[in-house]
Every structure is written in C-alpha cells, then in structure tokens.
C-alpha cells in the first residue's frame, strides 16, 4: 500500500469516528432537553451547561495534548508528533470558541451581562488567543522543521502561561460558578443532571478524538501527496 492509500484509509476511518461522535452529540441534545429536569433557579438556561462544560473539557484535553506533543517533539523530532500537535491545536481552537460562545449565551440571562472579567472567562479568552497565535505562527513559517520547532517552543510556553493568567485574574476577583463534579465534597449535582453531564463529557471526548484524528489524517494525506509530487518532479 502506498503512503497516499494508507493516509486515505486513515482518513476514511477517522470520518466514521467523527460521524459516530456527531450522532452521539445528537442524543446528548435530546437527553439534555427532554429527559433531564429543569434547574429550579436558572430555568432552561442551565441546559447549555451540558454543552458548555464538556466543550471546555475537550478544549482542555486538546491543550494538554499540544503541550505534551511540544515537549515530545523537541525530544524525539518526529514529524508525526508535530502533526498531532497542530491537529489538536486546531480542534482545541474550535472547542475553545464553542466555550466562549455558549458561555455568554448563558451569562446574559443569569448574570445580566454577556461578559465579565472573571478568572475563568479571562483565562479561556487568553487560551483562545494563545491557540490562535500558535496557528498564526505555524502559517507564517514555511520550512516544516523550523515550523515544528517554533510551534513546540510556543506550545511549551503557552502551557506554562495559562496557570499564571488564571492565578493573576483570580487574584482580581471571581464570579464563575464553582465546579459541580470535581470538587472536594464530591458531586453536588442531582443524579439525572449528573448522568447527562457525564454522558456529554464522554461524547465530547470521542468528538475531540474523531476530529483530531481526521485532521491528522488529512494533513498526513497532504504531506504524502506533496512527497509524491516531489518524487514525480524528480
């Protein structure tokens, strides 16, 4: 099997995973809207939580993968690691954007404002800026190995920066609701809501994996075609 065929097959498989994830996402919507009780104080606005929090989880996952891949790339210099970092950063940008869009939609009726400069909101916004900066940097360097090195350096620095931003804004003030699942006293969310939320977390993890894999396979295919063209030109 030629590298192009290999990449094509991987792309087809990754598409199946993404489709499964999208199908499951549909069931998350159905379950969240019709089969989960309405929150007593916030009313239906709270439902967006089942999309918002899992998106944040996937974004977090994506960023961790970018950070780990950055360190690993500088150690091993494997182009596949760099490709995974790039794919994960793109998908992470999408999920971070989803967090930043769903947050204000909830914030307007509950807080009375689309946006506040709260620790989580500000950290997420700057996470988005770092991810976009990472992608802009990649697009501005042509030589693949130089691009990979630069991106890895920025990935590592970005990973170090996020906790600092969070800390500095937290010292300002914080308004965001506190965690309802991963807090020291155990989950505070009622059972049915918790079930919907955990299901959604799982679905978003699969969606992240599917999209990242698909993106990875696409860029592998691109590279394989580029190599084949270069071969033909010779």
């Amino acid at each position: 099997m030629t590298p192009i065929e290999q990449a094509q097959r991987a792309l087809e498989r990754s598409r199946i995973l993404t489709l499964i994830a999208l199908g499951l996402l549909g069931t998350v919507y159905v379950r969240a809207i019709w089969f989960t009780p309405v929150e007593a104080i916030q009313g239906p606005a709270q439902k967006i939580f089942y999309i918002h929090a899992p998106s944040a989880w996937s974004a977090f996952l994506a960023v961790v993968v970018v950070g780990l891949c950055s360190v690993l790339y500088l150690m091993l210099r494997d182009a596949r690691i760099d490709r995974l970092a790039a794919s994960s950063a793109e998908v992470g940008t999408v999920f971070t954007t989803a967090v930043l869009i769903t947050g204000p939609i909830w914030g307007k009726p509950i807080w009375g404002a689309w946006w506040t400069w709260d620790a989580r909101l500000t950290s997420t916004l700057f996470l988005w800026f770092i991810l976009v900066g990472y992608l802009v940097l990649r697009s501005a360097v042509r030589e693949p190995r130089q691009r990979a090195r630069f991106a890895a350096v920025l990935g590592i620095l970005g990973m170090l920066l996020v906790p600092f931003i969070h800390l500095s804004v937290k010292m300002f003030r914080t308004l965001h609701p506190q965690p309802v699942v991963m807090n020291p006293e155990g989950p505070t969310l009622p059972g049915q809501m918790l079930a919907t939320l955990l299901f959604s977390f799982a679905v978003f993890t699969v969606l992240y994996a599917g999209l990242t894999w698909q993106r990875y396979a696409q860029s592998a295919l691109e590279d394989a075609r580029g190599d084949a063209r270069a071969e033909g030109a010779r």
Partner: protein
Amino acid sequence: MLRQAWLIAAKDLRLEFRSRTAFLSSLVFTALVLAIFNFARDPTVLSGTDLAPGILWITFCFAGLLGLNRAFALERENRTLDGLLLAPVDRSALYLGKAIANLVFVGTVEAVALPLFAIFFNVPLWPVLGPLLGIVALATVGFVAIGTLLSAIAVNTRFAELMLPVLMLPFLVPPITGAVQLTARVFAARPLAELSGWLRLLVAYDVVVVVAALLVFEYTLDE
C-alpha cells in the same frame, strides 16, 4: 557563560550607542503615547493618580515591544547570526546576552519615560520612587525574558513586526496585571501586606520565564 553573555550584550549596546536610531525613536514614541493618553481622560472627573498605573504600564508595554524586535532583526539583516552561531559561544549565553542588552535598552527608555510621566500627569514620584523602581525592575525582567525569546522566533517569520505583539501580548497579562496592581497600591500608600501576593506572582513569573527561556532558546535557532 556569563562572560560570553556580557560580551554579546556589550556588542549589541555598543552598536546601539553608536547609531542611537532605535533608542531615540523608542523614546519619541513613548513620549507620544504619554501625550496622547492626555486626550483620553477627563481631568475634572479622574485624577492623575487614579489613571496613572494603567497609563504607565501600557506605555511601557508598547515601548518595550518596539525595542524587542531590534535585537534579532539587526542580526538577520546582516546575516551576522550565522557568525555568532559559528563562534564558540554557548546558546544560553547568546540568549542571556541578547536579554541583557534588551533589558538595558528597555530600562533606559523607562528611566526617561518615568519622569516625563510624572510631569505630564502631575503624579508625585519622590515619595514612592523606591518601591516603584522595584516593581518596574521585576516586571521588566519578565517582559524582556519572554520578549527576547519570542522575538528570536518572530524575526524568522513573515510579518515579523506583527507577529511579535500577537505572540507576546498574552504573555504580558501576568506581569502587567501584577505591575498595575502593585503600582496602584504604592500610589495609594497601602500597607506592605497588601502587596505581597502580587509580588510573589511577579517573582514566580520571572523565575519560570527565565528558566524556561534558557532551556528552550536553542530550539529557536537554525541547526
């Protein structure tokens, strides 16, 4: 390593001292930013000291960004970085040297801008000069440490002048927030206990950034 770093810093500063173009233009730019801020406030509503911390740090931030592009842009223009890389100089010494030169450059601009700022906005500097200089020094170290590293990357990309601020501004959130908060408290003559949290943040940021930059700098250079 420190001796090598110092040699590189001295070389950069000598170059800068002889031409002075970058320094003078940064200075004029800083004065202009300060003057323009004058139009952005209503002196009858807000007193100078209320706005001062924000104005001061945004001005320093812009002035610093301008100066940072210079360090590697010069080397690149004349292809002299290859020469530096061929010389038996440690990579971290190269980074330190560049960072020291930038620190002196940004520090000098700040030293001129600070009295100008005091005059323009009628802020009494003398009583707070000691603590203020400490805050400026702490924030500038973090600023220059990350800026030197990122400018080594940005200079190799297309749109280098635009790339540096895009990459760098997120990294300025912790030092600038810390510096603004500390400056405001110093101006308001708050007790030292209110400063310690932000001071710790600034110091921690400086340490993490300097160590990380020394470790990863070599990867920003061509192999």
